């Protein structure tokens, strides 16, 4: 097992190298010029050129890529062209809100979606099943920002139960932290819940048709034990796979959710950096997210071994 983990971690190196080259190249050829944005509307062409030179943007691709790669290898993601702050500092400032949002969304989604999927499979074809699956379709269809606006309108503006926007660090208290995350987590989790619920239902239906489930019923086990102990455990592998894949959905969805709810997370940092063409920040965040996603997939693969003892690496 340890050998497998080490091999997987080592395998991230070429993956990250490819991601680094890809994102750097993409930004290099993309239109837009950070020097123009920095210089402002009133600047002359000479001013823009001087700023571009000061930022090193006039150097060849190979030189810039080599320099950045060496920096990254030494743990330095560079400095923002706009703020002058280290990219690691900027990421450090914004990581807690994004992680909090993703974690709360993940927990909420799993706690809601899995039981829904199980119940829908248990009562397949019935009104419960149809109702849940209709909700799942709605979850896929309605964009995150629409759900976000509706939630904010109802629960914040009209009912005044929760705040419209913002983020409070966990260090300032559990409820203030959670209070700001409830609506964003529901908005972001909507499509995630839909996805997990449908996969859970599909895999549960397959498992519930197996002989050992019939045997369990014949032995007199209660439906609860059958569904949540025997069946769910055997259906868990695909569910966990989808949860892992869905982390990418969360990362993408966090960008929109953070904008709608004014959460100062990495999603907004990414959007701001893209609009401004703040290359070091964009590169640093993409690298970081890629690394996180690779790790998540590793964790998912390891969880398989806990769920299914037949799986061994």
């Amino acid at each position, binding site marked *: 097992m340890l050998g497998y983990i080490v091999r997987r971690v080592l395998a991230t190196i070429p993956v990250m190298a490819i991601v680094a080259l890809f994102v750097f190249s993409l930004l290099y050829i993309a239109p837009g010029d950070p020097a123009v*944005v920095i210089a402002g509307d009133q600047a002359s062409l000479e001013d823009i050129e001087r700023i571009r030179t000061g930022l090193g943007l006039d150097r060849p691709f190979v030189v810039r890529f080599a320099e950045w790669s060496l920096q990254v290898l030494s743990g330095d993601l560079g400095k923002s062209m706009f703020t002058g702050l280290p990219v690691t500092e900027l990421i450090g400032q914004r990581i807690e809100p994004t992680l909090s949002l993703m974690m709360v969304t993940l927990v909420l989604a799993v706690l809601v979606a899995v039981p829904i999927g199980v119940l829908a499979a248990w009562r397949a074809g019935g009104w419960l099943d149809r109702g849940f699956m209709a909700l799942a379709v709605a979850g896929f269809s309605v964009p995150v920002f629409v759900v976000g606006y509706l939630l904010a309108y109802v629960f914040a503006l009209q009912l005044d*139960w929760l705040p419209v926007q*913002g983020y409070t660090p966990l260090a300032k208290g559990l409820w203030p932290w959670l*209070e700001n995350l409830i609506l964003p987590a529901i908005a972001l989790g909507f499509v995630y819940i839909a996805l997990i619920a449908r996969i859970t239902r599909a895999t549960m239906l397959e498992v519930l048709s197996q002989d050992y489930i019939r045997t369990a019923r014949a032995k007199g086990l209660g439906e609860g034990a059958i569904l949540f102990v025997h069946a769910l455990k055997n259906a868990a592998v695909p569910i966990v796979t989808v949860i892992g894949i869905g982390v990418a959905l969360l990362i993408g969805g966090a960008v929109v959710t953070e904008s*709608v709810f*004014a959460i100062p997370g990495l999603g907004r940092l990414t959007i701001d950096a893209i*609009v401004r063409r703040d290359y070091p920040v964009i590169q640093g965040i993409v690298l970081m997210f890629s690394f996180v996603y690779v790790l998540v997939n590793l964790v998912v693969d390891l969880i398989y071994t806990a769920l299914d003892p037949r799986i061994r690496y």
Partner: protein
Amino acid sequence: MDRRTVIKGLTAAGTLAATGKLAAPAVAQGAKVLKFVPQANLANFDPIWGTQYVVRNASQLVWDTLYGLDSKLQPKRQMVESEEVSADGLTWTFKLRDGLKFHDGEKVLAKDAVASIGRWTNRDSMGLMLKAIQKELTAVDDRTIKWVLSKPYPKITYALAKVGTPCCFIMPERLAKTDPFKQIDEYIGSGPMRFVRADWKPGALAAFEKFKDYVPRNEPGEWWSGGKVMHVDRIEWVIMPDPATASAALQNGEVDWWETPIPDLVPVLKRNRNIKVDIADPLGNIGAFRLNHMHPPFNNVKARRAVQVALSQEDYMRAVVGSDDKLWKPIPSFFTPGTPLYSEDGGEPLKGKRDYDLAKKLLAEAGYSGLAVTCLVAQDQAPLKAMGEITADLLKKIGMTVDFVATDWGTVGQRRASKNPPGQGGWGMFHTWHAGADCVNPASHIAVRASGDKAWFGWPDSPEVEKEVAAWYDAKSLDEEKTTIARLNKAAMEHVVFIPTGFYFGYQAWRANVEGIGNGPLPWFWGVKKT
């Protein structure tokens, strides 16, 4: 007691039971903290290096200026106690007020002002003019600055007071010695608020705290002049990119003041009895149809005039601001309505009924061959997107072919700098707007300049316009200035330097328990109280 407080209380009790820690109170300092939603992200904080308006607006809290403009656009002393100018107009001597301090406790000295002026003169258009005629800029003693010029520059105090960016903010010498094309890395000033660096999250939050040692002037505050008396202890700039979120936050009392509500949301805010809405800046904005004078079709003045006689400012302004007639007016001028130098001389082509037949005739006389006009339209800037759509329709109506390039502002900014022909990465036209504060006279009004290669994007070339700009700088009285501006406006209209698409205002909105919010080209925080 409201529902959120009840829920909070119950949950706090639960949290206390579970964790032994009460949720932190959120309202203890509410009366002294002002939460402001600015027009844009404060991504950097060097007002000389980065000339965005949002940087200037934040900088005015932290850094002071030698002079400041009042509501009549007249420069008034701010850090300066007195000034003298020699009879020949070549030597200016400024004396600083006593008792000025920087946020690090150091006294503000003349050498700080000298270094700051030096940094500013490397980036600002008026500053560059002054630098070109500067013979000496020195600190005579701790409070006296001497500036010797080789020719008179009557508008020197205006240059030091203007709100057009970059403004001449006074920094400690060690910061002011930073290369003007590189950022400063400390934010120490002598303004009424100090920047709380530790709380700065670029793109999310910027915080300012009252500077206890600030000595405001004795006069009442008026725009950028007079006493800057702060009535709040802390100002938080909460960056909210989504206007619907900002609107909801304002309605919910989570923020106190929103600088730029979009027109669509203003009716909702106006219906809320806890919110006040008013025009933000009486100097407004001038929309612009910027043409490329270097390449066909708009390298021909008749082709430019064809657009000018067909363009309907009402169409553009309704697209930008909606149906609220209080928010716009037609403007047959390049200068800001309601200001002393405003002139409509030469503006007849923009008045009256639009003449598509004349436009087509002018295009034919210009030899227009059907070449596509590459229109760069920024989709991420609502006014520009709206204007772009009107333009596409207008150009087609007068018989032009349109190549509509829907892109983002960053790409427009890059591509408009290209002098290549439109088919090779260049462009035919783009839209922008100019703050009315920058269009009160030629000093900050780079868009009206027609110095060819050295002009702003589009590169109009009109010696007649430039002659009048030079005459304005040399004008010795207001009447003389008005005469030159009238001639300048006429010459610029005839040459079609660019086409104004209309004059429009924006709103600002704030909670009813906030008092003292005035209007102006910047949000003024002095005098603002929160009850």
